[in-house]
């Protein structure tokens, strides 16, 4: 229980820390795109595990997802920065191509459907203490970098042209963000699954945006919302014995509705 909640909280904090920059760049669906590409990595990892005759055939699923997610993130970033395709088209190619390749490879490899489903929707009940510790370390690094380089990352994502005109390496910084997104998505695979990981990165940012007036306060509040809904979702998931990803994202969306209602009521009562 503790390992599961700690894992969920870690990715709940790290997801919005990266997600805020993705929303700022207006590519909030990048997380979903990378998540779908990572499915191909899960299938390739499973195939590699079988080919190597590993006792646990799924042992390479997470490393496979990590490698393919990183490659996918870098390729899409390069495609966008070279201006060869529009941002939404690049994401669509990633989205559909990654999901389709994952399904085909999984069928070809004769992989276990439980593994596939766990990758898609998360399986917090299976989290080990080792996984929880590694996830917490990875998430802490991502959060430290996202906040430590906040000003320069803000400049690069808010107005990339002005940033480049100031000598700020906007291209390298946005590539780093794509890489960080790939890391968070792989870390979050077990907590929320690859299909719903984008929700954990973006919905808390959307909630914070309802009542924050600056980028810094949006980031801070989004991380708190993300960590909170992930912890609550994880506890209820284990108590009720259901899939974790769906419940965590549903909790986030319900919270969005509640905060939107409160902020609109407050705004309506404010004197003009």
């Amino acid at each position: 229980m503790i390992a599961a909640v700690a894992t969920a909280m870690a990715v709940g904090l790290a997801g919005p820390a990266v997600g805020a920059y993705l929303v700022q760049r207006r590519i909030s669906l990048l997380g979903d795109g990378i998540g779908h590409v990572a499915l191909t990595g899960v299938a390739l990892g499973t195939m590699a595990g079988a080919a190597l005759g590993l006792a646990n055939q799924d042992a390479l699923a997470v490393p496979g997802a990590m490698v393919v997610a990183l490659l996918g993130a870098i390729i899409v970033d390069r495609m966008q920065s070279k201006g060869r395709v529009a941002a939404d088209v690049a994401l669509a190619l990633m989205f559909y191509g990654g999901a389709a390749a994952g399904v085909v490879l999984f069928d070809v490899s004769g992989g276990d459907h439980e593994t596939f489903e766990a990758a898609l929707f998360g399986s917090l009940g299976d989290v080990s203490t080792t996984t929880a510790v590694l996830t917490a370390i990875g998430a802490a690094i991502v959060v430290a970098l996202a906040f430590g380089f906040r000003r320069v990352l803000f400049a690069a994502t808010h107005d990339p042209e002005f940033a480049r005109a100031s000598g700020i390496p906007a291209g390298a910084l946005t590539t780093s963000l794509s890489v960080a997104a790939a890391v968070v998505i792989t870390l979050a695979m077990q907590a929320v699954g690859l299909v719903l990981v984008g929700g954990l990165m973006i919905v808390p940012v959307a909630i914070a945006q309802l009542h924050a007036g600056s980028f810094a306060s949006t980031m801070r509040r989004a991380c708190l919302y993300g960590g909170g809904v992930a912890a609550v979702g994880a506890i209820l998931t284990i108590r009720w014995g259901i899939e974790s990803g769906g419940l965590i994202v549903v909790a986030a969306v319900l919270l969005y509705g509640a905060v939107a209602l409160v902020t609109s009521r407050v705004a309506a009562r404010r004197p003009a």
Partner: protein
Amino acid sequence: MTSTVLSAAGITVGFGETIAVRDVSIDVHADQTVAILGSNGSGKSTLVRAFLGLVPLRTGTISLFGTVVPSRHAPLERVGYVPQRTTAQGGLAASVGEVVEAGLLSRTSRNLPAHGKERARAALDTMGLADRYSFPVGALSGGQQQRVLIARALVRNPDVLIMDEPLAGVDADHQIVVADVVQAAHERGAAVVLVLHEAGPLAPLLQRAIVLDRGCVTHDGAPPAAVGAHAMPGHDHVHPHADQTTEPSDLQRGVL
């Protein structure tokens, strides 16, 4: 003659089959206020973006304070740039202060320098927005957002101020504030390059005009004379005209 701060030598910029800037050579000197004029699509914005290394050159070279642009050591932190924008809002809420403070960052300065917030407030004060520091930038009008972007360029006290359509969306009163900014930059010895559609209150401050037509320089010298209502007797200028004592031959050679 003052020193050259910005130099373009035979530059050509193209996008696919289209040539946006064709074989342009320009030197801009310290304390010079230059307007780049021309119709839509004449290559004005592309030219100033080339000055900053934002678009690749097909031919020619750009140098800034004697250093080639783009390059790792180009002193871009000495340039204040106001890009052509309709909004200062990104995908997420940002405060006016955060946007202006981004103007204090550079390749070598990735965090706010000492007194960064005070400098940002001072730049906003110059643009008449001192009380908007904590406001979400998206809550401001289009003209106010344009002034925020000008404050972001001013906050670093640039030696070269490049503004692309700085009067776009700015009301008449605040166009005079923009003119004050240009005059103040000139008085402290900065070079100012302005991409303009209409000079408005900036007209009296211009010492030189470069006119582009389909990417080529068709005029480089004295600003075109005022016509219509602006040329009527009794037309008042808020700012004194630029020094008219310069030799016409100098203006023609563009060596102010």
